[in-house]
């Protein structure tokens, strides 16, 4: 599979009717795994229609890779079925936890950046990869709070987990920017430290200000500072497929597609400059 700087969008229910009707052309599309797992009806029809034109990425939010509870084998059976059915290009989830004592928080909570957490995450990711017989693509999350016991740097923590688990990475540029602002680390240094060869694709999204912090709300166009960091990441890591996420204040599908094409144009320009 060629990992060139092609554009992509995330699939949203608001756009389902339109997605059923039109040809999106080549590129990528990302589906939130849990919105399609075990489903029929319109969601599955949309996924199969989009798959005719585009590569599909299954991006989970509930695997709880850092969670304390055992994995649910039924979840992984369903995921394997869905992945086979649509021949997903990548399957992934987040460097976070979202469950506790059998309950789901439906959020992506950060973990303390400790050696114990690295070992725990790496073991769980390896277990998940064994069940799926596939390398997982792990995304860095936005964070609003840090643990007193965190000892490792953000990039160091991610890198150690990726290496110990032999996993791939989804680099969410907006999340790097937001977390860097909120926790007080340098976003550019984070990009420098990430193992480029493990990055499979990028995420971009908008964020908003919430008091002194930034909120990763996916509710607006990609901001100038995030574009700047994205261009830096492309120059450092190389061109990769890029998915533009937009969840709240969702615009028309054409606006979303235009935003993702803009990302592609920027990446192509940076790649060309690097080649020259």
């Amino acid at each position, binding site marked *: 599979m060629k990992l060139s700087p092609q554009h992509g969008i995330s699939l949203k229910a608001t756009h389902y009717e339109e997605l059923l009707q039109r040809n999106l052309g080549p590129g990528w599309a990302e589906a939130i795994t849990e919105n399609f797992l075990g489903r029929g009806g319109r969601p599955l029809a949309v996924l199969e229609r989009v798959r005719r034109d585009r590569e599909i990425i299954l991006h989970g939010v509930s695997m709880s890779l850092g969670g304390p509870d055992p994995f649910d084998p039924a979840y992984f059976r369903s995921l394997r079925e869905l992945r086979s059915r649509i021949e997903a290009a990548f399957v992934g989830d987040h460097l976070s936890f979202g469950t*506790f004592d059998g309950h789901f*928080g439906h959020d992506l909570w950060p973990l*303390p950046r400790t050696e114990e957490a690295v070992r725990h995450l790496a073991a769980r990711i390896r277990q998940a990869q064994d069940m799926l017989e596939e390398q997982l693509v792990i995304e860095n999350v936005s964070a609003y709070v840090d643990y007193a016991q965190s000892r490792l740097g953000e990039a160091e923590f991610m890198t150690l987990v990726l290496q110990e688990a032999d996993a791939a990475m989804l680099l969410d540029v907006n999340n790097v920017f937001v977390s860097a602002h909120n926790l007080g680390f340098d976003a550019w240094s984070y990009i420098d430290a990430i193992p480029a060869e493990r990055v499979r694709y990028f995420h971009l999204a908008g964020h908003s200000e919430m008091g002194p912090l930034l909120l990763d709300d996916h509710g607006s166009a990609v901001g100038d500072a995030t574009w700047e960091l994205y261009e830096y990441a492309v120059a450092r890591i190389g061109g990769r497929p890029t998915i533009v996420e937009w969840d709240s204040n969702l615009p028309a599908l054409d606006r979303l597609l235009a935003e993702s094409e803009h990302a592609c144009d920027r990446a192509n320009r940076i790649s060309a400059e690097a080649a020259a």
Partner: protein
Amino acid sequence: MSLRQAQRALWRAVRFDPTPDDALDFFDGDARLDASGRLAIYRRMYWLRQVHALDQAFPRLAEQLGEQAFTRLCCSYLRHYPSSHHALEYLGASLPHFIAQRQPELAGLCRLEWAHTLALLAPDAPAKCTASEARPDSFASARFGFAPSLQRVDVDAFALQAFGAGPQPASRPTSIPVVVFRRGFAVRHVALDESEARALDLARGGACVAEVLEDFAADAGGIERAFGLLRGWFARGYICAVEVPGVIE
């Protein structure tokens, strides 16, 4: 402090307001915002996201209660029933039971809305109906397989009215059998009379055709009506398989 202790602290921080002091000790803030203020972001997202999900699943119930009362109901429900499914859409699974104990007058509407959600989320029925493979002389012993989206609930007239079914005659019984089903991408429901509800419940419970239709045999015109029912079940996609003894599908 172990990883599990840290995770438990975050779980308690999002579930309880304010964050318990012993949980707060696990986190750092800075001069811009202390740990308590930062954890409040996660807590707000936890409750807002889940109340919103319940609002999406129960829009008519929310309308009946009004925003504040519905939010109070949801928060009370979530304190008793934290999510136990990986998909947020299944969050309301126990709300019909929960509301039946507190506001029984709304339980029927809650059941009907939840049945709609389950019908919407269900996997597709197998594409092939095997009815044509059944030999006529074995039909009486055949059993039906039903579409995964098919739901059977008993509701009250108020629930049907809330779905825009119009005013119900005063003589309508307080418990009305309803079937909820998905055709194409749309979910619909139909109120059943007692005989069809009994037949459908028997068939879904695994009874064979002869047992399902037995009640109709004694009535004048019963046979015609029984086969009319079956034709309707096929036409509306309730039935997705006919399992005949000796026929391997």
